[in-house]
């Protein structure tokens, strides 16, 4: 059934997803919202891996494995990120990204 959908369509969907994520990451002040943007970008890439695997090299499964790895790492990354947010909040009572600017010259 997937074969009936042209690859360009799928790629347009994933590109849109990616840039929505990037836009969210760059414009939102709230760190949690930014994290959601990152997740969107990751998932757009995931779909790309699966689609390219399916359409370009149908007899191989490396793309699927990459997708699985990325899901696992994204989970870990989310856990670490949220732990950082909680600590940030405990320290400065805010998770506004513009107030986190201690690490400068």
């Amino acid at each position, binding site marked *: 059934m997937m074969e009936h959908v042209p690859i360009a369509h799928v790629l347009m969907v994933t590109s849109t997803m990616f840039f929505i994520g*990037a836009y969210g*990451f*760059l*414009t939102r002040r709230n760190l949690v919202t930014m994290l959601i943007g990152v997740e969107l970008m990751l998932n757009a890439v995931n779909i790309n891996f699966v689609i390219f695997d399916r359409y370009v090299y149908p007899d191989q499964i490396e793309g699927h494995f990459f997708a699985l790895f990325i899901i696992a790492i994204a989970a870990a990354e989310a856990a670490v990120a949220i732990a950082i947010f909680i600590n940030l909040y405990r320290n400065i009572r805010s998770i506004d*990204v*513009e107030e*986190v*600017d*201690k*690490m*400068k*010259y």
Partner: protein
Amino acid sequence: MSYVLLILALPLSVFVVNGLLSGNLPHRLAGWLATGSMGIATVLAWLTAYNYFFQSSSYEKIIPFRITWLRFTETLQIDMGILLDPISVMMLVVITTISLMVFLYSMGYMQGEKGFVRYFSFLSLFSFSMLGLVVATNLFQLYMFWELVGVSSYLLIGYCYDKPEAVAAAKKAFIVTRFADFGFLVGILLLSYYTGTFDFTEITNPENAAVAGMTGISFMGLSVLTWALILIFMGGAGKSAMFPLHIWLPDAMEGPTPVSALIHAATMVVAGVFLVARMFPVFSFHAPEALDAVAFIGAFTLLFAAIIACTQTDIKRILAFSTMSQIGYMMLALGVSGYGSEGLGFTASMFHLFTHAFFKALLFLGAGSIIHALHKNDIREMGNLRKHQPVTHIVFLIACLAIAGIPPFAGFFSKDEILSAAFASNPIYFGVAALAAALTAFYMFRLYFLVFWNNERTYEHTPHESPVIMLIPMIVLAIGSVFAGFIPFGNFVSSDNQPLHTHLNVTIAIISVMVALLGITVAWIFYKKESSLSEQLSNTFGALYHAAVQKFFIDELYLFITKKIIFNLISRPIAWFDKHIIDAFMDFTATVTNWVSKEIKGLQSGQLQHYAYIFLSGVLLIVLVMIFTNT
């Protein structure tokens, strides 16, 4: 004869043990450890000498031990080993014997001093290095031990490191000899570059074609070989305090007196003589010009130091200048010597080295005994000590007679041979040597009469005779000073290792005894009692006397050359270049880096999203570039 290795190993292990445990060893144990092992080494050295000289008929070069220490290429390798031939065996005996006496003496002299264990560990290091030097099989091993004796001399001169003069003297001794050793090193490299070997047996072989080939290459009027030998002699002159590299020796008297006796009188300072003797066949066969230089420097230093010694007032400095003068005799004798049956000068030089070690060490130990009792060095503040120190008086008198060359004491025989050799070579050298003999007798008996006769002075406390442990070595050395001259030295030590039959030259013996007696008589008239004669004499020679008291301004000349000329003309321009060109370039790069970083540090804003923007823009840029370059 592998036990020869033990002679070196014993002092080395004492150095290691005493040096590592210096804080934890009781003084007496450390002292007896050092003295005891030196005693064993002395017995072994005498045994070596007995086996070498009396158990075999011909005195060949024997190498009982040799290892390859560094192998660079198939042809270039550096060995370590032990070479026994008449001069090295003779030196082994001298060094171990004098060391043992000085070690024993130090047990009394240094008693209760703070760095007692350190002192003995350095002294053992010195003995080890000096023994390694004389048995070296090749020039490079000799050079290494040469530097080691320099280091131990430095450490021992600076033994009282809280005394600024001692520190300055130690540095001076080290730097001056190091400067001379630079010439030595260049000479070694030059010689080995052309001959392809460091080995003494090969270099000193008269049939060696490579050495002979070096005479054919000429540089600035002299052959390359002559230059190499003159450079090597420069190292020897530095160590042996020959003019003009002698300036460190009088200052080196800041070290403890037993150290002066061992290092700066009997053993280390004759290393230069030993070096020339070791290379003697090369000098004699291929480079007579270099040998002339040796003779000239020796004769000059001989007279120069003797004149200065007549005017000094510090007991140890008089002995230091006397040492320089006596080493001048040895160099002169080597310089006028021929090879084989003409080699009287060589034998005389080694003979004088042997006898000089005994009576000069004795003089220093005697001076140490006096200083130990009085705690001062100035002979004008001494007098009538024969009442207080009878034993020191007797042994000191024996040493004075020996150095003045009065028969039958040791110095007479060796000096007679030197005078004969000088007479056979050049009457001027003979005149210089005879004049210096008179001066030697004069300054030694000036010292003797001023210290042991003359007027009673007021002392802080009555001077006492030294303890037995200090008297025993002095008595042993006194016996040596009396009898060492009767050894038929030419039968054992000669330039070609064949027995050389020397006989007393009666005419010259009479002349040398006459001049010595003249010197003694003048000293007796001047200094036996308080008299104004000496002042009248010094007033007659006003300018000369003043110059001699100031050691002919050589120290001032050195200061002028270094401070005024070298510092201003060479060091300051180099310092300017370093500061204004090299440092400035480094400063410039640092300033630029600093400025750039100051300008761009605003980019590190701490705002996460700024970074993300820049990162993303970069990625997009790369993507665009890739797209447009691929199509």
